[in-house]
């Protein structure tokens, strides 16, 4: 009987069941190994990051004991938030809010400065990134040297964080919003240039060939063949970047490069904790408004694309 079963070929259904089971086994093993590796690596990182540390805490009765750092530290978050929250009472609400936002004139000025830094940095960054993205695209670069140089330039510009550029530019041009504009602008050029060049690498090359065959220069090919194809994506990425840059410009003042960030530093050093919550609220609302506006605008751009062409 068993011998016979060995010889007779399996029916397709049974063969499928066998193959299916084998495939499932292989998939399970793969998952198992991947999970073990993942958790081992995760635990190692956590250990390096002091997540397993124990620390000494003082109890209410004055005795001291060792505790794991997470339950020991979490209550301090509440403590911090409590410190930053202002005292608001119903009967003196107006006065309390005035007290909370006591520096509102300075803050409003700095807020405008923050948004303007983001705006100008985005404009400069878009220009730089856009121009560089074409020679930095594999399919468009006039030759491999230009490609190499442009790609390295964009890499350096985006690998160095805004805060580091800001430190450098504060050193060069002294404290003030100009350093912030340059820092965020340079980083933006690098980040957008990379994104744009990826868009460029996915375009249809035939229109460019059409321009070339009519006697167009490399610039003509880019201007007429490539730019119209990438424009909707460029606009979308640019608006997204403006949102990111508003966040960046609101913190960059921490190293003296203009905008609201410098107030954070001051509030912390003067221990004016309620100022922190006021500043946080200002930035939160601003970013939300800008995100909302730019999302609407972005959908409009996409909508225009999909709508009936004129």
């Amino acid at each position, binding site marked *: 009987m068993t011998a016979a079963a060995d010889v007779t070929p399996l029916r397709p259904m049974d063969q499928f069941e066998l193959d299916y089971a084998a495939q499932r086994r292989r998939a399970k093993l793969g998952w198992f190994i991947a999970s073990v590796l993942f958790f081992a690596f995760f635990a190692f990182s956590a250990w390096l990051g002091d997540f397993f540390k124990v620390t000494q805490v003082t109890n209410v009765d004055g005795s001291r004991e060792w505790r794991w750092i997470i339950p020991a530290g979490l209550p301090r978050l509440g403590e911090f938030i409590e410190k930053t929250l202002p005292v608001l009472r119903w009967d003196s609400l107006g006065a309390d809010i005035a007290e909370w936002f006591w520096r509102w004139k300075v803050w409003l000025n700095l807020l405008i400065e923050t948004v303007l830094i983001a705006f100008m940095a985005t404009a400069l960054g878009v220009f730089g990134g856009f121009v560089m993205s074409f020679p930095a695209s594999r399919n468009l670069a006039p030759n491999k040297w230009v490609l190499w140089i442009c790609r390295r330039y964009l890499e350096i510009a985006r690998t160095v964080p805004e805060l580091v550029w800001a430190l450098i530019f504060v050193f060069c041009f002294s404290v003030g919003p100009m350093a912030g504009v340059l820092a965020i602008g340079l980083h933006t050029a690098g980040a957008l240039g990379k994104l744009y060049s990826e868009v460029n690498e996915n375009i249809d090359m*035939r*229109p460019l*060939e*059409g*321009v*070339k*065959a*009519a*006697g*167009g*220069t490399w*610039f*003509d090919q880019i*201007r*007429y*063949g490539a730019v*119209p*194809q990438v*424009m909707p994506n460029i606009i979308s990425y640019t608006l997204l970047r403006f949102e990111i840059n508003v966040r960046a410009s609101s913190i960059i003042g921490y190293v003296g490069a203009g905008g609201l960030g410098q107030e954070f530093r001051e509030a912390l050093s003067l221990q004016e904790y309620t100022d922190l919550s006021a500043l946080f609220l200002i930035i939160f609302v601003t970013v939300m408004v800008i995100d909302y506006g730019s999302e609407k605008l972005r959908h409009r751009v996409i909508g225009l694309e999909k709508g009936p*062409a*004129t």
Partner: protein
Amino acid sequence: MSAQAALTLTGVSKLFDETRAVDDVTLKIEPGQFVGVIGRSGAGKSTMLRLINRLIDPTQGSISFGGTEITSLRGRDLRNWRRDCAMIFQQFNLVDRLDVLTNVLIGRLAEHGFLSSMAMQFTDTERTMALQALDRLDLVPQALQRAGTLSGGQQQRVAIAKALVQQPKIMLADEPIASLDPANATLVMDGLRQINKEDGLTVLVNLHTLDTARAYCDRIIAMRNGRVFFDGVAAQLTDDVVRDIYGLEGLREFNEAVTSTQSVALPA
């Protein structure tokens, strides 16, 4: 370079790694001829046209127009040559997202400096020229429409209009009707013939259907494995020759060929 110059290829070869896409081709195209190039897929038809337009450079040999050696042109002279020998592609190669008029004006770019070209600034004379070209191909109503929204046949006629404003001395077309239905194919081929007859422009066109070649061409060149295999008038193209050009297998594919200009009677 006079418009009445002949195009001469002498011992032209193009190698892609090991493949001899074009192999020692010697040809003389007289001014004003309507020449069809036929041959199996991979015979080297497209490569030959691209060599003439200098979209690619030959490995060997010489191409000349009038007294000018084309293969050694560089920079501005090269771009002027590309303008002088307009090229039409199977896939039209228009910019879908630009309007028809701008697509036609691309044919004027060789005359423009950097700034006016980047700003997409064209003169009134150029616009008039473009509209006249569009008018010849019955496309004026579509002038402000995006090129991508046109039908294939219309797009190919836009490409011809663009070629016309280049004021070329010779017109190359690489399977211009291969992605068109018969009615549109006829319109496009008639457009090319009209330009050939009225303007006396030399036309060199790759075709993949024999009946189209027979119907339109003064002269037919057949290529096989990169070489010129037949060169003569339609009447000389006997069944035996055709079998040799395409091979038995190729002939079968060929008879099922989709696009032809002959099988349709157009309403007038």
